[in-house]
């Protein structure tokens, strides 16, 4: 069996070569699904370390992007031994960049970190009108809505989206978090979101607090 603690550390150190080497030899032993799930959990714990180092200012956005890539590669390597049983999801998030804004780097980082934390994420994409959020809420009944944007005009679109969710009678069924460069406490209150963040790792923690 893999040294889970060492694996977690390697993921935390973003040592891709080492992580993939360990996982490749693990997969070659034809392990049980249960063992494989433990290895996944160890990788996810590594991502939590990455998040902490980011919050401490030791890692930066570029490192988070690479961490997301590393985790995707790790999970793909493990896929053949993971089987088809669905593991329990931590919760579900409908995520999108709001209307008028085409930026998605921050959204994608948040997405990969949410997935690493065990959330099921429905990513709508960029430049998404309020109706797209509403249709998806009706379809998948998520716990959380994540709205992202970089331009200041995104704040207006976030407010329109929250208003439309209210009008559709869906506001009480979801928590709403907004993220991106222009969001602030004041903007959050004005928009009517439940939380705001400019830090993906912190955003994931907020979401985890909501689904506990």
């Amino acid at each position, binding site marked *: 069996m893999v040294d889970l603690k060492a694996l977690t550390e390697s993921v935390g150190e973003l040592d891709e070569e080492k992580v993939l080497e360990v996982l490749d030899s693990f997969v070659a032993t034809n392990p049980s699904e249960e063992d494989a799930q433990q290895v996944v959990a160890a990788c996810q714990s590594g991502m939590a370390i990455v998040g902490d180092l980011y919050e401490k200012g030791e890692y*930066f956005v570029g490192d988070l*992007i690479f961490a997301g890539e590393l985790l995707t590669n790790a999970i793909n390597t493990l896929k053949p031994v993971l089987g088809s049983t669905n593991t329990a999801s931590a919760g579900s998030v409908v995520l999108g960049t709001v209307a008028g804004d085409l930026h998605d780097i921050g959204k994608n980082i948040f997405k990969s970190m949410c997935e690493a934390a065990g959330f099921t994420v429905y990513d709508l994409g960029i430049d998404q009108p309020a109706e797209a959020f509403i249709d998806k809420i009706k379809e998948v009944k998520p716990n959380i809505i994540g709205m992202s944007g970089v331009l*200041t005009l995104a704040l207006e679109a976030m407010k329109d989206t929250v208003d439309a969710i209210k009008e559709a009678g869906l506001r009480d069924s979801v928590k709403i978090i907004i993220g991106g460069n222009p969001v602030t406490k004041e903007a959050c209150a004005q928009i009517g979101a439940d939380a705001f963040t400019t830090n993906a790792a912190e955003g994931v923690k907020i979401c985890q607090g909501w689904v506990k």
Partner: protein
Amino acid sequence: MSDAVSLSNERTQMYKDLYRGNVPTRIPVSSAFTLDAMILYAGMDIAEIYWDMTKAEAVFDKVCQDFFSDSMPGGTRRYPSFYQLLGSKPFIMGSTGTMQHPNVMGMGPEEYDEFIASPYDCIIEKILPRLYTELDSDPFSRALALAKAARAHGEEMATTGMIAGKMRAKYGFAAIPGNATTAPYDFMADFFRSFTGISKDIRRIPDKVVEACDAITPILIKKGKIPVKSEYGVTVIPLHMAPYMRTQDFEKFWWPSFKKQVDTLSEMGINVSLFVEHDFMRYLDHLYELPENTIMRFEYGDPKLVKEKLGKKHIISGFYPLMLLHTGTKEQCIDKAKELLDILAPGGHFMFDFDKNAFDLSGNIVENLKAVQEYVYLNGRYSEAERAGNTEPKPRVNRTDEIIAEIDANMNSKYFSTWSQYKEKHTELFERLHSVAAPKIEKFEDVMFNFIINLCS
């Protein structure tokens, strides 16, 4: 001399003083508006004006009439016409009309060697056809698409140039020639490898990233050349990726090629103006190493610390939080301006500007912007005593011709010729015409070079 001309001269002199490290008569004030916000202010449709720049004159006129600024507000180089004609992926118009840059990848990680061998060839042959769908076609359609786009670009530039001329003549803005270029690592990231791609490359193929940045540096120096001869040209470089990297990565991948670029532009007699985007507080010691009187507009950080570390050698600007204009009261906005002036104005080396430019007019921005600009105009004045240390500016070193000749000679591209390379191949051109032909041939080689690099940044 008309009022506008003498006002323009006076304003131009303020900038000239600053750029040579002297204390100006007063602190220059900039507008906070992007062209998008200006169009909204004029009550017009952003998308429509971007498509038909002839209508922008009314927009500029209204904003210049209603708001104070020492330099011309607004301006863009992102015209939808040529992007549309080329089937652009890196720059597209969002549903509100604002031109935006999605995360695109024009170059694969396996193409570094080819890029390093000849960046200009790799850009033309491999990268542009991926970024622009109309260039991913048969050679004839491709040639026609590029010709249409270059023509459209030229026309849009001429239209905005004409409007700028009119506004300058009417409102007496400062006349300082300018250009823009990109930092080498940012250039590799923005359109080629993408934010996500390059963040992986520096871990997987670090040496190739360094070599690619070195290979593109001369091209990006050439791109930043001031198009007219001037003692006071300013080349803007918006800085992008550095705050998103660890310091050790920044020092290895981002900084060396950038430093070389700025040093060389300085040797070309240019004042480089950096838009220091996001948080550069980790890098103040690096910024200090840049040539004297480099202009740095900060988006974020501690103005006191920046003044202390850089304020005697460089020209500081920015820091004013735009968001406050949207959300604050008039009093709060003026207090903030006063606070920044108190910190940054003493001893000169300071221009007033905002941390970023406005794209929309939400909240109280219109009234607050007017109040802040008026406050700085009235209170940002230097006394004779404060200006007593000013010295006669020495002529600057200007090695432009030599530097550009060397870059051109080393372009190593099938698609770029210096005049001497050209005339060797084209013996049909009568020698007696060489002196008149050479400037034209060189000019259009450079026009296309600038257009091509513009499409990549």
